[in-house]
């Protein structure tokens, strides 16, 4: 803010007006900052302070002294590395499935005449109105050994013995993709709605085939929405607890499950915090590297 005040001396034309303009601009910026204050306070109170506390706890040993014992344990036992690998694997796969299903769906929604959009949007959003737990258990009922899907398929003759659809990675991914899909579709649909259809006609006019017009014009313009949606899905997946716990049958152990196991059995806040800290840092690293590789910060923030 002070920079604006200092700047005035350097400006030559109409000094009086310039000064007044700068003052107004400064006032406006302070006002805008003031609007953000409540949110900033909340962010500090419910995010920064607890996360700081989490960091601190993770470095306190069981004897109350500062120590690295919780981190040492993560190196000592292979389960921790595997759990992190599973967590990222599930998150990447879920995000991938959501893109594969969500992109065509959003495209379809964006092409629909407005009076139909409401109906189909409702279909996308309806799952949001049901509790996560109910949706997860509904999948269990559908997918289990003697569940509806297996029963139906065996009656019709698709397969003879029950197929293992749940209590494993398959079931986890089905459930998670279903729950995460709206988080991808909403930002993506929004981005697609804003793409000017005339651009496609212009591309065609200039000799592009429909396929090449799509890949060279439409797809790049829809990327920011896709990246935003994928990031939301990916990050939400990392902390998921209920769905992998229920549909993974105890075989798909994600970080949240491991944290619960440590807390429930050992009441060990330090060890649990250390896991949280590592997940946080691993996530940041992952996003940073992914951002570098795929340049999605450019796509997301419109930088060149």
């Amino acid at each position, binding site marked *: 803010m002070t920079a604006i005040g200092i700047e005035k001396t350097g400006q030559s034309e109409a000094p009086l007006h310039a000064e007044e303009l700068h003052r107004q601009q400064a006032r406006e910026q302070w006002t805008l900052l003031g609007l953000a204050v409540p949110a900033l306070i909340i962010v500090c109170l419910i995010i920064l302070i607890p996360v700081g506390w989490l960091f601190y706890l993770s470095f306190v040993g069981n004897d109350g002294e500062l120590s690295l014992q919780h981190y040492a*344990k993560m190196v000592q*036992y*292979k*389960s921790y590395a*595997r*759990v992190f690998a*599973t967590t990222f694997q599930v998150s990447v796969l879920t995000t991938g499935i959501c893109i594969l299903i969500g992109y065509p769906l959003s495209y379809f929604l964006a092409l629909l005449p407005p009076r139909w959009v409401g109906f189909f949007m409702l279909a996308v959003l309806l799952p949001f109105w049901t509790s996560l737990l109910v949706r997860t258990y509904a999948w269990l009922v559908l997918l*289990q*050994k*003697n569940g509806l899907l297996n029963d139906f398929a065996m009656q019709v003759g698709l397969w003879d013995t029950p197929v*293992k659809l749940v*209590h494993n990675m398959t079931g986890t991914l089905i459930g998670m993709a279903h729950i995460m899909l709206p988080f991808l579709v909403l930002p993506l649909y929004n981005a697609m709605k804003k793409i000017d259809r005339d651009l496609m006609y212009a591309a065609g006019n200039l000799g592009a085939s429909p396929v090449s017009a799509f890949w060279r014009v439409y797809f790049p313009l829809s990327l920011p929405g896709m990246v935003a949606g994928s990031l939301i899905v990916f990050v939400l997946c990392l902390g998921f607890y209920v769905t992998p*716990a229920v549909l993974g*049958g*105890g*075989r798909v*152990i994600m970080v949240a*499950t*491991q944290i*619960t*196991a440590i*807390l*429930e*059995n*050992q*009441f060990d*806040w330090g060890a649990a915090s250390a896991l949280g800290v590592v997940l946080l840092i691993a996530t940041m690293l992952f996003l940073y590297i992914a951002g570098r590789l795929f340049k999605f910060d450019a796509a997301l923030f419109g930088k060149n």
Partner: protein
Amino acid sequence: MMNIKQLAMGTAMALVMTGAANAEPITVVSWGGSYGEAQDKALFTDASKNSGIEIVRESGASMSKACLQVESGSVTWDLVVTGSGGAAAAAAKGCLEKIDFGVVDVSDFYKNTYTDYCIGSDVFATVMSWNTDKYGEPGSDGAPKSWADFFDVEKFPGTRAYRANNVDGALEPALMADGVPADKVYEVLSTREGKERAINKIRELKPHIAVFWGSGAQQAQLMKDAEVDMTTGWNGRFDNAKKDGAKVGYTFNQALLDYDCFAMPKGAPNKDTAMKFLAEISKPEYQANLPFHITYGPTNKKAYELTTAPKELIEALPSHPNNVPKMLPVSLDWYAEHRAEALEMYMELLSE
């Protein structure tokens, strides 16, 4: 203006009411599913009526949550149900109030069903149960009889379920299946090699373990849906599943004998009232009703004399003198010393 006045009056009344601490209901926390229901019917409802102590029931009892309340200085729970091992661990962390044995009478309790920090509520067994359509009724010729049978997928082909994310009661069966006599199990498990031996045995079975269960309710559901053919679990849950039509049977042979108990978080808001309520529900006349609702045995010997339950039901209880000799009592000392290491090793196996 009216609204503000009403609000002020409401607040004043709330203040007056919290001032009268004696009249405040105590918060009793148990588990969900058929277990909590059984305690409601057998213990809580009647004890509350007879003692005049009002209670608020909550589900989702957990010693870690109780400890969190204690450590953050905002205790809202008065009495919490827990497994014996959980109580021992919480007591070691300093999260529990000492029991006032001047108030709670344990003179008729079985030995080893209470400690300075928790009072046994029921005796249960960790058993192996199976689908009776598949392997036959308990006691019949073809039925599984021991942990060796549970781990033998050639003799008993089919899927299994085993404990998830918690090592309690997970290693002992594997060792017995591997030929270790029951009375040597904890001795063997006290070495790292012994723990590895148990883990290796479970690793052999792992390809056949279709589901790792996380709760008693899930054990029952797995058997009801015939999702797996055999599972470990808590005997009362299977009896209740059977009542609901599940084709399930189990054996007490080589089962793990254990108890659940009531503990009080340190700094419980209504400590004295809760202690009185604990004394009330520990009386044999309430425990005598428990078998009608779940087949967990009383911890108070006198309950066996008082109960009006039929003979078959009483003989089916884990703490019945006929059944106790078949089982291995869970060693709290072993869990106090070895639980943390055993859990890490077990989690390593599960994450493979």
